[in-house]
């Protein structure tokens, strides 16, 4: 069973009396453990697609099934719960909580999951150390470089042990060295068995995935897989 399944997903926006179609009926299955890149120019609908996969938005029509749960059947609280347990977000602009230390940023999802603060911090610190930021755990985001902030954000995405990591242009705001480091971490996470869905307009970044889904004008135009990626089952 795919960990992520979209059927006929359509998303329309109403601006004034004009209807804009951001997604025009998308079918997509992603299996557990895949490393998928969603590629397309800006305005292609890939961000809307990411919002659908991330349960941040609901389709106008069509169905989204994440980890066996039909999003349409879930209320707001259940959807938040699903997001918390199943999906870890990495954003282009890092989106760390301001004026909040790295360790507290990483611990936040665990606190929302109801963990005890002390335990959450221990787990957060472990992850930061693993990502080479143990020394900077007490720093607030404004004292961290872009690459460091993105590593904190990755630690935060991983802290609740989600099956899917959803990364929206994770290297988009970084210099090439930091970007390469972030991609190295992505591969490492993938090797742990997690499903990675990476949204990018950068073909070099996309080339590092096992499967590339090209989006254009709200539709999937191409779905190419590396032959090697088919093997683990």
């Amino acid at each position, binding site marked *: 069973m795919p960990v992520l399944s979209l059927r006929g997903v359509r998303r329309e926006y109403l601006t004034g009396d004009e209807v804009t179609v951001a997604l025009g009926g998308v079918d997509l299955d992603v299996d557990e453990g895949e490393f998928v890149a969603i590629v397309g120019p800006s305005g292609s609908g890939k961000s809307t697609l990411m*919002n659908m996969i*991330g349960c*941040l938005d609901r389709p106008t029509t069509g169905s989204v099934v994440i980890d066996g749960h039909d999003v349409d059947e879930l209320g707001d609280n259940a959807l938040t719960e699903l997001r918390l347990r199943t999906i870890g977000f990495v954003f282009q602009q890092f*989106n760390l909580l301001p*004026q909040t230390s790295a360790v507290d940023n990483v611990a936040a999802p665990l606190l929302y999951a109801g963990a005890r603060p002390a335990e959450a911090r221990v787990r957060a610190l472990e992850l930061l150390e693993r990502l080479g930021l143990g020394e900077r755990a007490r720093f607030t985001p404004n004292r961290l470089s872009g690459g460091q902030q993105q590593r904190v954000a990755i630690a935060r995405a991983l802290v609740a042990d989600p099956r899917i990591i959803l990364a929206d242009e994770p290297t988009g705001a970084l210099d090439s060295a930091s970007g390469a480091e972030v991609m190295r971490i992505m591969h490492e996470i993938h090797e742990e068995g997690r499903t990675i869905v990476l949204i990018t307009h950068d073909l070099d970044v996309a080339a590092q995935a096992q499967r590339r889904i090209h989006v254009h004008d709200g539709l999937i135009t191409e779905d190419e897989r590396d032959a090697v990626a088919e093997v683990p089952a």
Partner: protein
Amino acid sequence: MNFAGIIRLSLSRIWANKTRSALTILGVVIGVGALVGLVSIVQSASTGISSSLNSLGGNNVSISASAGGTLTDGDAEALESIDGVAAVATGVTTQGTATHGSTSATFTIQGVSADYPATTSIDLAAGSFLPEGASLRATRSVVLDADAADSLGLSANDVGAQITLEGRTFTVVGVLQAQTGFAGFGGSSVYITQEAARTMFAPAPDVSSITVVTASDADVDGLVDSVTRVLLERHDISDADDADFTVTNQADILDSLNSVMGILQLLLGGIASISLLVGGIGIMNIMLVSVRERTREIGVRRAIGAKRRTILAQFLVEAVVLSVIGGILGIGLGALIAWVVSLIGGLTFVIAGWVVVVGLVFSALVGIVFGVGPARTAARMAPVEALRYE
């Protein structure tokens, strides 16, 4: 996230914006400060007045002549036999001039019986009270209260001095202690024996007032009724509305004082509450700005697993914590104001526990009432739109 976590989060947010937070809570500080301060000042004043009234003689019932009537020694004797009466004292009161050397002043001259001190709580600073009996020595003795002594240029050291009262020479046998607070508002008095007063001021009525001291376990209201009934009978008056005397008791005066003070407290508290309301609007304003500024943060929190109700709680708690901090500071400010005022006004500083509780509850209510709107705005944001917000 548990409640302690949300509180911690709010405190860190408030601390992160120190200046803004301080200015925001200023309105609540002033509101609660005014509330606590004004109510406490009224309370201090009222406590002072009632303790003074009590010191004038706990549960005494006083009878004074009115509507052209007169009271007599016979009336006083008749009252002594009523159940629950511990003592009866009569008094003759008039105005007169006293002179010492070249200093003279006008006083209330009170002709009292020797047991007068038992009906009131006056304390001697020096000397003794009037001697008993109608001896020459007794009828030429005078006791001065502190004010009277002062206006004649005398002090507690001057027991034995001679003064002239309405043309007669008297010897000062005692000086009373100065009354504190409101007890001194009766003006200055000199005390002489009733016998002396009656001789000097005849044909003025024999008795101008009767004070009945009630037994400590007596039913004062019942006693007032009995006193009225006995006197009406003795004065041959059938309708109590036509009575030629007035019966008052301390408890009644205290009751009406308390009700006046209660109304005053309510009124001033109401006015202070308006400033608290203004403080609440200030909090609401800043919370709305804060929700707008932190739209993206709200989006991120929603994305990483915060439920709507957690966001609601975060902002609501922040507003309540802000206003409660303001409330606590306001209570301190109000207490300080009340303390300074009571120091200046010579009142006993009183701050009631209930005022503190009301101050806290009101400030928390202000936080809830004015915080719930902004918090709901924050909780209702769609995660996608909040994340996209620049």
